[in-house]
């Protein structure tokens, strides 16, 4: 028995926009959210550029007291949850207990609050931390705060698989619907731009250290020179299809399949042959009951370094064979950076919006000619409206060999969004 699940509400906090509509407009227009980190405490960072969330007024979503007790990554999650619930017109208080749940992906938890606690401890004396600040850095804090705020008693899940975790969270949420849940707030956010978090990321050889935002994160480009970290993410309402229909909510897209695999190849580098990444895609397609020929667009992971890009192209060639040159491939995250747990979740939102609107958003800064020549890919560099847009594949990879793929299907299209 399969339980049909639709994405019925969207909540986005991204470097290019807070809220799904502003984010979508910026994404279709190919705006760049990557810039020099503006935080006052980033002056010693070896990583100069990032996808920093700048237009976010946390006070709009979270009162002073709760803000003081929570990490920035939880602010993003609380704001996204609020927007997603409102967008889905879902009022938790109207629903019986245990019908609604929350599943988040959190790669690195509360970086800033973790640093703050450690700093306070070593700089001063213990016992100064407020009780709630002291547990704000736990990975589970975000999901717990969402459950408390909205009265979601159906259970919490928190999953981490580096950059692939945002898609894996959707699988966990789907399982909850299969077990009788009606709706799940699900997705991922990340806030890794505090000083120590940047120092940690700078140990990765693939992080971009340049200073030109226009030439920083260029997936599938001959000038690809690493990834740019980013913050933010997305939460959606994943709802049992019949439940959404009964409420008169149309939704954006249907979750048709998910699969995860692991390279088991190297502790940082992806496997060059792309075998396991390809298997994630084909397994998710099988689960979705769709063939590779049915795929209208691929939202690629887009590592932004030559080895990672080549591995992904190899995987896509395994999946699509000779047809690869015809399949539109896009990397909208080129405009926001890599948000770790937020990445897969935000890409799922972008794909859902593409299916709803019939528009494929571009890869900002992409070079279509070079991508074709070098990788055999049809990289989308300007927004397009293909004749058919019913099936989208979203890929996400995490450092250490994680691969995940999700298949989304269109509901009825609505170009007015």
């Amino acid at each position, binding site marked *: 028995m399969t339980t049909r699940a639709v994405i019925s509400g969207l909540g986005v906090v991204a470097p290019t926009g807070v809220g799904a509509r502003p984010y979508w407009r910026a994404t279709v227009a190919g705006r760049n959210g990557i810039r020099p980190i503006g935080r006052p405490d980033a002056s010693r960072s070896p990583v100069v550029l990032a996808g920093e969330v700048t237009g976010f007024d946390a006070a709009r979503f979270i009162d002073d007291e709760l803000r003081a007790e929570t990490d920035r990554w939880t602010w993003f999650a609380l704001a996204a949850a609020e927007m997603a619930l409102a967008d889905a017109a879902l009022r938790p208080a109207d629903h019986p207990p245990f019908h609604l749940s929350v599943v988040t992906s959190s790669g690195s938890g509360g970086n800033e609050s973790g640093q703050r606690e450690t700093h306070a401890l070593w700089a001063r004396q213990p016992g100064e931390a407020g009780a709630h*600040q002291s547990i704000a850095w736990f990975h589970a804090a975000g*999901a717990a705060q969402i*459950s*408390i705020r909205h009265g979601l008693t159906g259970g*919490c899940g928190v999953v981490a698989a580096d950059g692939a975790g945002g898609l894996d969270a959707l699988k966990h949420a789907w*399982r909850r619907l299969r077990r009788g849940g009606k709706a799940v707030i699900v997705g991922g956010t990340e806030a890794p731009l505090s000083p120590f978090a940047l*120092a940690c990321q700078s*140990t990765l050889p693939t992080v971009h250290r340049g200073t030109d935002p226009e030439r920083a994160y260029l997936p599938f480009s001959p000038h690809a020179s690493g990834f740019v970290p980013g913050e933010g993410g997305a939460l959606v309402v994943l709802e049992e299809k019949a439940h959404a229909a009964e409420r008169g909510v149309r939704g954006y897209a249907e979750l048709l399949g998910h699969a995860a695999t692991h390279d088991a190849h190297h502790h940082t580098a992806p496997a060059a042959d792309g075998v*396991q990444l390809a298997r994630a895609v084909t397994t998710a397609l099988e689960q979705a009951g769709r063939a590779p020929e049915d795929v209208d667009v691929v939202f690629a992971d887009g590592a932004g370094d030559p080895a990672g890009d080549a591995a992904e192209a190899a995987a896509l060639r395994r999946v699509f064979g000779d047809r690869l040159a015809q399949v539109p491939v896009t990397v909208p995250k080129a405009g926001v950076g890599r948000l770790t747990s937020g990445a897969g979740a935000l890409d799922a939102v972008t794909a859902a919006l593409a299916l709803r609107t019939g528009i494929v958003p571009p890869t900002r800064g992409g070079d279509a000619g070079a991508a074709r020549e070098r990788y055999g890919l049809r990289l989308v560099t300007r927004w397009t409206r293909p004749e058919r847009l019913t099936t989208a594949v979203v890929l996400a990879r995490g450092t250490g060999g994680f691969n995940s793929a999700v298949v989304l299907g269109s509901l009825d299209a609505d170009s007015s969004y």
Partner: protein
Amino acid sequence: MTAGRTARRVVVTGVGAVAAGGVGREAFWERIVGGRPAIRRITRFDPSRYRSRIAAEADFDPLAAGLTPREIRRNGRFAQFALAAAAEALADSGLRTEAEDTDRFGVCLGTAVGATVTLEDEYVVASDGGRHWEVSPDHGMPFLHRAMHPSSAAAELSLRHGLHGPSSVVSTGCTSGVDAIGCAFRTLSDGEADVMLAGASEAPISPVTVACFDAIRATTAFTGDPELTPAPFDARRDGFVLGEGGAVLVLEELEHARARGASVYCEVRGWDNRTGAYHMTGLRPDGYELSEAIISAMSEAGIAPEQLDWISAHGSGTVQSDRYETAAYKRALGEYARKVPVSSVKSVIGHCLGAAGALEMAACALAVRRGVIPPTANLLRPDPRCDLDYTPVLARERRVRHALSVACGLGGFQSAMVFSAPEPDPEREAEA
């Protein structure tokens, strides 16, 4: 909620454990059955300026556990526990990964605080002992990105054993262990893999974690003989004792296990969780959400309260949580709550946060196989509001056909899992 058995059944075929007082499955089992708390004054750092100064420290030697120097260098202590426990569980299961379809072999690992120890040590260096908020980028040890992401431990397990199935970390705080094993259970029963390394590990005994639990007054302030605490369900209890360790189980689809003639510890029959949605550190007194998690897990298992032979309790030794849990058993099991023996393994090995659930499920698997239930240490004078049979002080011989294991966590997370003794293999029966 949906009831009934899933088509694909899931069994435990290997157990590995690292805990205070016992590195390795046999030492762990002996320690918890003996009921002597493995608690001491913290030796990993000088605890004198903290409120809580005792812990259940594991005497763990990663080289002796078979880790390579390179693995030791790039993995924090919590990940090292997981690597050691997984190796033991795999050997115990008799599986040879080279003979398996590794596409169908995955990993699900729980942890609440991940590589906090490494992050703190490195931060102290990078910030010059807390002098600079803007840390120097020149000090980073080469593997700091791994420390920042606990999922690196799951990746390391997949890499070490060449496993290409789904791999992830579950981090639901103190319910991480139960939830990680639950996640693996679903992965197998949904047909996404045939074998999973499933478990959890934790190494939280560092200044920052100790200070955080001091701040919320969850840990004990006891300053007497360390072995006299924790005292779950006892009137004198005053908080939990932080512990470290890890356990990994080999979870396997039943037919896969039967086909290779594996020795089965027990079957995983049901799992669910609920959330209090109430307060980050507070609990409602009635045990409502935990009882709902228990009811749902038992309903999936198709087990009635009277069939339960043992409950491996959360039993952390905080005033609030022990009462909450007691109320939950009464609500979920009715009158039978007074008849079924309950034990707190944490009374011996401390509260290992995310790893606790995995260690307690390792205890369940061993209790089912060996027909012994470990005791609750230090329970001499029960809290009048904790009025169930908590198996005080002494282990008992008892046939365990069905066992329940629960976990409660900060943030209001409540998880429950049901295990049953293995059913005889009909084909093997016929041959005999």
